[in-house]
């Protein structure tokens, strides 16, 4: 094929794609530079690839379900997640931009950032027991019974916990407990957090932070070979 014909061919097939992307928000661009209308770069706090800054409770976003992330941005914007930093940012993002940036982070797979402070083995072990079995004397199921046995997350509602910042998990559980986060479907986490002691919160947060990242995928309907 002569070069000029090839060029025309490439131009022809690529034109509609460019036409589409020209109108769609660019999630990677917003993550790196902000949207220029009040939303700063996400990467400043969440890391260039969404790996987070676990020591200062800036959560890992990479690999979380995109619909979950959109729901959180919406919650920050409408106030059911009360957060001084995130509320104005979420409000500054259009629905298209929220979707684009959520998809960008959902597809990102940076390595885990290890926290500088490591919990002791005993704390992690008690967190593991709570995460895997629960504390039924208080009517508490194991976290893994909804978030997946390896903390890998399930579907768009139950986010991955494995490898998440301990400080972040702890703050979220306390936010539910204190009524500062109310966007949990059926108020499941409001009920769960109300039954957790501070020690249990610290232990379960340390346990999930200690886990390796799990492979994430959207929940799938049960097939014939589970």
């Amino acid at each position, binding site marked *: 094929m002569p070069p000029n014909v090839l060029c025309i061919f490439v131009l022809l097939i690529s034109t509609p794609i460019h036409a589409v992307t020209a109108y769609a928000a660019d999630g990677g661009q917003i993550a790196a530079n902000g949207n220029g209308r009040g939303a700063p770069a996400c990467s400043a706090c969440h890391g260039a690839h969404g790996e987070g800054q676990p020591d200062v409770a800036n959560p890992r976003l990479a690999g979380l379900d995109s619909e979950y992330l959109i729901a959180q941005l919406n919650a920050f914007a409408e106030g059911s997640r009360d957060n001084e930093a995130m509320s104005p940012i979420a409000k500054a993002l259009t629905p298209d931009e929220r979707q684009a940036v959520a998809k960008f982070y959902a597809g990102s797979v940076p390595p885990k950032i290890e926290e500088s402070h490591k919990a002791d083995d005993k704390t992690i072990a008690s967190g593991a027991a709570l995460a895997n079995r629960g504390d039924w004397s208080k009517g508490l199921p194991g976290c893994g019974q909804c978030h997946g046995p390896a903390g890998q997350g399930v579907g768009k509602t139950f986010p991955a916990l494995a490898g998440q910042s301990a400080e972040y998990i702890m703050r979220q559980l306390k936010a539910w407990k204190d009524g500062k986060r109310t966007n949990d479907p*059926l108020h499941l986490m409001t009920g769960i957090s109300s039954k957790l002691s501070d020690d249990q919160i610290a232990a379960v947060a340390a346990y999930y932070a200690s886990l390796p990242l799990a492979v994430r995928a959207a929940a799938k309907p049960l097939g014939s070979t589970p």
Partner: protein
Amino acid sequence: MSERRPDLRTWIAGVVFLGLAGFIGYKLPSSDTSKSAEPAIARPVASNAAENPTSAFVPPGDDKIPNNEFGDAVRLGEKIFHDTQGNAREFVGNSLQCANCHLDSGRLASAAPLWAAYVAYPAYRSKNEHVNTFEERLQGCFLYSMNGKAPAANDKVMVALESYAYFLAKGAVIGADLPGRGYPKLAHPAKLDYAHGQQVYAAKCGLCHGADGQGQSAADGSVVFPPLWGPRSFNWGAGMSSITNAAGFISANMPFSQGNTLTDTEAWDVASYMDSQERPQDPRFDGSVAETRKLHHDSPMDMYGQTVNGVVLGQNSPAAGPQP
């Protein structure tokens, strides 16, 4: 180019509509005298152990499992119970785990605890019209609730499960009808409302079990929320296919972590909705749905053989047992 703007209200409405909730299981009625299709009789509301925790027997903790051969069997039993798919796969024909219906791995009162069942056998069961040993009762779980096949009485899986149940029952009185046994018996409903059950399902159950009742699994394929009907759920011979059992389980334990929050009417109606869906055939099926209903499902609390939305339930059931 499609309009891609996610609308906040639509999303929230979607979540609220999908609703959540828990499992639903499929455990055979703990009462040995009940058929899976037990006659609908008005019963007083049973005391619920979650509301009266002091009334329930407390099984020994894992730290009391001895470090010897018997302890090994107990630990294996607990593993099978918690992860039946991973540890007793050859006897399982669906996506369920024992612990889906027997919460806290068979420890929780009002969620068919093993310790209460263990001390209740041998016993006559009208379901099969003879005296059943505990082993036979366990085999029934595999055959019906797990839609699988029964392990032989001396199989390692059976030995482990019986050891685990025995361990949990340590200190319980043999022959006692312990508080917290089985599922609570709710007062008989004036009627069952399928449409209302469907609404309750959408609002409180679908979030976890899926709008289509087929459950949800994690990326690695591990089933997190069990399917409530369809080919990967319990079959028509399971105790949970009785609306009476399902309503009791749901009332005490669902939505997961929010037991005792539904009204009795909600529990009955959502149970009737769940048990009005198609599921694997009753292993006792003799070729005729009508005849099988007459023999094993003759109760208004059992939808097998009844017509729902123009279809006779049981008529299009997937075959019973593990499928290749």
